């Protein structure tokens, strides 16, 4: 009987194992292999073995450093906004009235949209010369900044990204807050705790697992931002919004340089792997309470 169950388990897992083996592990293998070649996406050209040439090229390009810097800035800013705003909203909108539920549903609307649509609407609203926002600012006799200029372009991308994902994180935090048993609040009240104290010492610590999920999901979704960059700024001006995933995409599918793009991919994947291993270490320590 037990042996039969082992067989069943393997049988049930075969499709998934094949899936992850091909589309994740094999794809990493292909990327590593390709990264040692000078290779074009066009099938007709013969690949040339260049050893670590592609990796040297990554670091010789000043653009790489710029795009890494920009990516870190983007991550930092959007994580901060997408953590703080939904968390405070979830704590403010704690009541389960019809009105609050409706507000939360409406706040989720942006997350239902395709980033293509989001990018185009905000491009129209923020357009420095013909855009709606600057039209209003002009009417109010306020300065009309160039939202896609060198100084503000990245901030614009961060704001649009935050607008898009805020409601999603709010739903996650809401679920987390609603998971906290009512008894904890009653017990805290009996002990004479006020609300501030209750949030600081009971709600926030108990929300830690939710916080981890929020950070993880935000990071995962942040890779989607290159749709925004693709449509709103195309990486410009002066590479100020040239996020790293977008730079890889351009190398592969605009310049057709698969070898270089694969090397950039491997480089990004190793950084991510390192970061997530560190993150897991930190979480392991902090989840125990």
């Amino acid at each position: 009987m037990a042996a039969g169950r082992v067989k069943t388990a393997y049988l049930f897992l075969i499709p998934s194992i094949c899936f992850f083996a091909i589309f994740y592990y094999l794809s990493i293998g292909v990327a590593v292999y390709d990264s040692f070649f000078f290779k074009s996406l066009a099938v007709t050209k013969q690949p040339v073995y260049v050893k670590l040439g592609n990796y040297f090229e990554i670091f010789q390009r000043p653009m790489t450093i710029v795009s890494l810097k920009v990516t870190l800035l983007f991550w930092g800013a959007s994580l901060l906004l997408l953590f703080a705003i939904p968390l405070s909203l979830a704590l403010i909108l704690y009541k389960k009235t019809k009105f609050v539920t409706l507000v939360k549903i409406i706040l989720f609307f942006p997350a239902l949209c395709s980033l293509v649509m989001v990018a185009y609407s905000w491009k129209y609203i923020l357009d420095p010369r013909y855009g709606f926002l600057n039209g209003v600012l002009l009417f109010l006799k306020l300065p009309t900044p160039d939202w896609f200029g060198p100084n503000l372009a990245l901030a614009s991308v961060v704001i649009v990204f935050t607008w898009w994902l805020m409601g999603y994180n709010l739903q996650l935090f809401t679920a987390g807050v609603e998971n906290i048993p009512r008894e904890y609040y009653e017990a805290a009240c009996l002990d004479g705790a006020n609300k501030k104290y209750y949030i600081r010492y009971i709600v926030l610590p108990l929300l830690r697992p939710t916080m981890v999920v929020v950070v993880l999901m935000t990071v995962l979704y942040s890779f989607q931002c290159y749709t925004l960059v693709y449509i709103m700024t195309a990486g410009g001006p002066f590479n100020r919004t040239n996020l790293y995933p977008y730079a890889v995409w351009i190398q592969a599918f605009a310049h057709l340089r698969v070898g270089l793009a694969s090397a950039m991919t491997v480089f990004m994947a190793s950084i991510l792997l390192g970061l997530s291993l560190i993150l897991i270490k930190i979480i392991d320590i902090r989840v125990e309470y």
Partner: protein
Amino acid sequence: MDKRVISGIKLAKLPYYVFLMAILGVVLFPFYFMVSLSLQSTQEVFSYPPRLIPGRPMLSNYIQVWTTMPFSRFMLNTTIVASSVTALHIFFDSLSGYVFAKFEFPGRRLIFNLLLLTLMIPIPSRIVPLYRICQWFGWVNTYQGLILPFMSSAFGILIMRQFIRPIPTAIIDAARIDGCSEFSIFLRIILPLCKPALAVIAVFTFIYQWNSFLWPVVIVDSELMRTLTMAITYFARDHWMMWNLAAASSVFLFLPTLILFSILQRFIVSGLKISLGK
């Protein structure tokens, strides 16, 4: 249970509502603007300052979207891709989640850890090799190429495992004793019990696939295989954009997700609650 007890920062009523209205305004304005744009004529779209209310609503824009390009074909492509991926997700995520929740077998830890590791490999870091693999399989410009690379995810399997674990093993054993086959235990007992978690996975997968853009752009180059999101970029010419038509097609893109979300919205919070809980 359902009366909320956690109290937020104390605010006098008025600033609280003003603040909420401001946030709602910021969130809703682009939607209003999209609908308004979709009803404007070409001259109005390029007038400055931009118009908030169309002079004479041009419903013809909505028809023009369907006639100037194979819009129904794009709609069909997106529907096929998004629903197939969702169906495959529901089946394979729950099947694997069930195995990891209820079976003991050699190599279980290893396989599970290898699975978790894939969470750290987001699409952009796979997009180039993924294209190479699909090129190799001859999947460029096909439904297989659009669907199969996304038919499961570690996240979905994780949620299902979390959800199935508390289901009493006694039910499964009882079914076994009654002579139920392993597969029909999964199909007839486990799957029906998983509805809330499956609703969460279905909604998020469907919305994600419906809206997906960068993979279709990479894998599709023939006109007939394009998806809806790519249709919107159709209206962008080099320095000139048919904003009203782009907005009208955006409305068509947005409505299905809105309807789906409105129907399943009750399940989402409850499903998320269960998935987040230990």
